[in-house]
């Protein structure tokens, strides 16, 4: 009896210890994931800001401004349009009137409530040519804005525009709602931005840092964080953005804990991360982004105006090879302007030419190609554009197409891209969530002149809000690209962002913009 009692007590004690350990472990685990307020999060950028005014655009500026300013609507992770300062909206059946119902109690950093009058001012300010908003032309369908009441504003359009929301949700520049009195106090362009975001601006020391601090009265939206919409919880007291132009130095700064996270983690250090840095408290996140890389053809230039020549190039280029050369596998091959994460993507967008040198050579003969050397323009400011150009040159050479790399400066690349002054150009662009905007670049290489049907298709897509119809129209747009090869879409490259392991809640977005809301430090 005594022995049996002893065993029972022993078992009971063991059970108690096990339960205690379980409870403690659970508590520790929960504590690690329980957000903490406080601290300063420092994010390393690869370049400094150029402006604090949202109308200036620029991805780097937008990265910071996203924490200070908010738009009416924004893109979610699946590129759906979600409410931000607008709680809901209504579109008239003819798509000529949009009514936005604003959330109440949203405060600007100067303490004043954001109301419908601010929306009217902000949009009119964007539309004003003097403001020099880099995407002003997108607002061409707006005729006037009407303040219905304190929290309701109507957009009256001069033509049906089912896709106004994509304009209002544009990622860069952010189409923010701003207080008139602050803009005018600062001479019409922000040098000290004031918005409704979770963080307010403190100071910008050019080439040193930008400092923001938590805006205490800010109330996160009730919806969960989703892309650039949803709840924005400011756990950290302050966030700091530090430009570190040299990428190897940025990794050193991360290892030294001088920064807590990096906007870009260099691909060339991925192996080093796996072997070494991951053991030193560095965490790298990777996600396929929406930024796209492509080879453009001048559709009005000698040789490249010939569709058969362009088709020959398409048969010659192995997209996998080029993606590997430029991004060492950290990219998703995609022959379509529509990225795979976009809800408009369908398997039809995967239709493309499989590498076939015999077919390429046959088409070159039919095109009358006699071995002329064609300049292949590229630049070294964005290394991947150069790498893909080198790879494409080799691919074309194998098919008998002679090219000569013409490396120019980035401003020259931009100018030539804008004016269509090239025969073949290696290029890339930031995320463009709406495919109409992406395909619209084809006006620049004169493809619309050569194949007017493409413009008709895009105009139809711009004038319908029917998702099914739009999807079909984008499939048609891709088919036109496939048949006529105005460009060779190569891949969407991955975003690699790095952080220290004590940085919690930090999630990479496929839109490419880091979000320091919802992030806390556990150290």
């Amino acid at each position, binding site marked *: 009896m005594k022995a049996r009692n002893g065993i029972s007590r022993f078992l009971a004690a063991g059970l108690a210890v096990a339960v205690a350990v379980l409870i403690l472990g659970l508590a520790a685990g929960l504590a690690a994931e329980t957000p903490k307020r406080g601290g300063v999060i420092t994010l390393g950028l690869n370049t400094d800001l150029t402006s604090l005014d949202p109308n200036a655009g620029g991805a780097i500026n937008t990265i910071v401004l996203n924490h200070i300013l908010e738009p009416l609507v924004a893109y979610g992770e699946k590129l759906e349009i979600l409410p931000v300062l607008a709680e809901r909206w209504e579109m008239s059946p003819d798509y000529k009137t949009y009514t936005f119902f604003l959330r109440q109690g949203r405060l600007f950093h100067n303490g004043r409530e954001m109301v419908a009058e601010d929306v009217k001012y902000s949009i009119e300010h964007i539309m004003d040519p003097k403001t020099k908003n880099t995407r002003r032309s997108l607002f061409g369908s707006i005729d006037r804005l009407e303040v219905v009441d304190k929290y309701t504003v109507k957009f009256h359009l001069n033509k049906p525009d089912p896709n106004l929301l994509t304009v209002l949700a544009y990622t860069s520049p952010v189409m923010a709602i701003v207080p008139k009195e602050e803009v005018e106090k600062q001479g019409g362009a922000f040098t000290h931005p004031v918005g409704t975001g979770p963080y307010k601006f403190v100071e910008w020391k050019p080439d040193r840092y930008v400092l923001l601090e938590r805006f205490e009265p800010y109330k996160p939206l009730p919806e969960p964080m989703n892309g650039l919409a949803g709840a924005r919880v400011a756990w950290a007291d302050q966030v700091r953005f530090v430009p570190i*132009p040299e990428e190897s130095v940025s990794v050193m700064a991360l290892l*030294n804990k001088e920064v807590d996270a990096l906007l870009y983690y260099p691909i060339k250090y991925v192996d080093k991360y796996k072997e070494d840095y991951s053991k030193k408290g560095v965490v790298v996140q990777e996600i396929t982004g929406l930024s796209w890389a492509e080879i453009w053809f001048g559709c009005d230039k000698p040789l490249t105006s010939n569709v058969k020549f362009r088709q020959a190039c398409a048969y010659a280029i192995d997209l996998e090879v080029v993606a590997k050369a430029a991004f060492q596998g950290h990219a998703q091959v995609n022959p379509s302007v529509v990225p795979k994460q976009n809800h408009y993507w369908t398997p039809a967008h995967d239709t493309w030419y499989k590498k076939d040198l015999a077919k390429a050579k046959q088409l070159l003969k039919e095109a009358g190609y006699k071995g002329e050397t064609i300049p292949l323009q590229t630049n070294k400011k964005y290394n991947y554009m150069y790498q893909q150009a080198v790879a494409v040159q080799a691919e074309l050479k194998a098919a008998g197409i002679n090219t000569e790399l013409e490396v120019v400066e980035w*401003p020259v690349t931009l100018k030539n891209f804008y004016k269509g002054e090239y025969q073949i150009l290696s290029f890339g662009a930031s995320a463009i969530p709406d495919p109409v905007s992406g395909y619209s670049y084809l006006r620049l290489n004169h493809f619309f002149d050569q194949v007017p049907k493409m413009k008709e298709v895009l105009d139809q897509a711009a004038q319908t809000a029917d998702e099914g119809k739009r999807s079909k129209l984008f499939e048609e747009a891709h088919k036109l690209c496939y048949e006529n090869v105005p460009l060779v879409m190569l891949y969407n490259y991955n975003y690699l962002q790095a952080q220290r392991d004590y940085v919690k809640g930090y999630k990479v977005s496929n839109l490419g913009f880091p979000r320091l809301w919802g992030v806390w430090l556990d150290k």
Partner: protein
Amino acid sequence: MIRYLARRLVYLVPTLLLVAFLVFFLIHLIPGDPAVVMMGPDASPEDLASVRQALGLDQPLWRQFALWMGSLLKGDFGVSIHTRRPVFQSIKERFPVTITLTTLALVFSLLISLPSGVLAAAYHNTQKDYLFMLGTILGVSIPGFWLGLMALLVFSVHLGLFPSTGFVPLWDDFWEGLRFMVLPSITLGVYMAAVVARMTRSSMLEVLRLEYVTHARAKGLSEWKVLTKHALKNAFAPTLTTIGLQYGMLLGGAVVTETVFSLPGLGKYLVTSIYMRDYPVVQGCILFIALVYVLINLAVDLFYSYFDPRVSYQ
């Protein structure tokens, strides 16, 4: 001396005018459209035309030059196309960083180059001399970019002695600021140290051959006194010219060091502005650097007579 100084200051005007003319027309000759860089390829032709008009870029070049010169005469360097901030304000913020970096680099290089150059000359054709020559060859050959990265790897990442990035002004917190400047100053100063050391050695070798030096030794003076009191002062004059030229070059050439160490200096700002085709910034910065360079050389020329009394400014 005063007349000489006045004459040199007067010569400053045509020099700067020539620099202004050259920089204005050269930067405008480089292909690239500031409006497209600013607005991006999505901008409509109307928006681009509007921006060009607002920035005065649609005017004939000669008129743009005249307007710019007119503003300069009023002390207005213009406004940055991209940041819309006054150019002079940006120069005021960044120049102290560059001058701090180059001055600390100068101090470091002189601390190394002068003693080593003197000793190399004193131990001419010995092992010490050969080691010195090897050191200077390495000094002028090693790229500053690589040297900076190696310095960061060793002293910042592995030893944790210095930060890898950032800047604190010396005038805000001297010791903390110095911590941020040690590695960049050494990186920038190595090349200058090598050049100045070689110049010092050559000058010393020439002077040490002169009869008065033999006389000084024969008098029984210590070798230290012979080298420092008698020889170095006379040998220093050409070295001073080299130092002046190098210091001036460092002002414009610190861009690599500023980029590696993420310093908010004038050199990096200038190069970035060239890429962005920010004409007012490029013009303003180059003009400012030219002015400083000319003033440094003027100071060097004025000091020259102290080391070489044969030079007169009458």
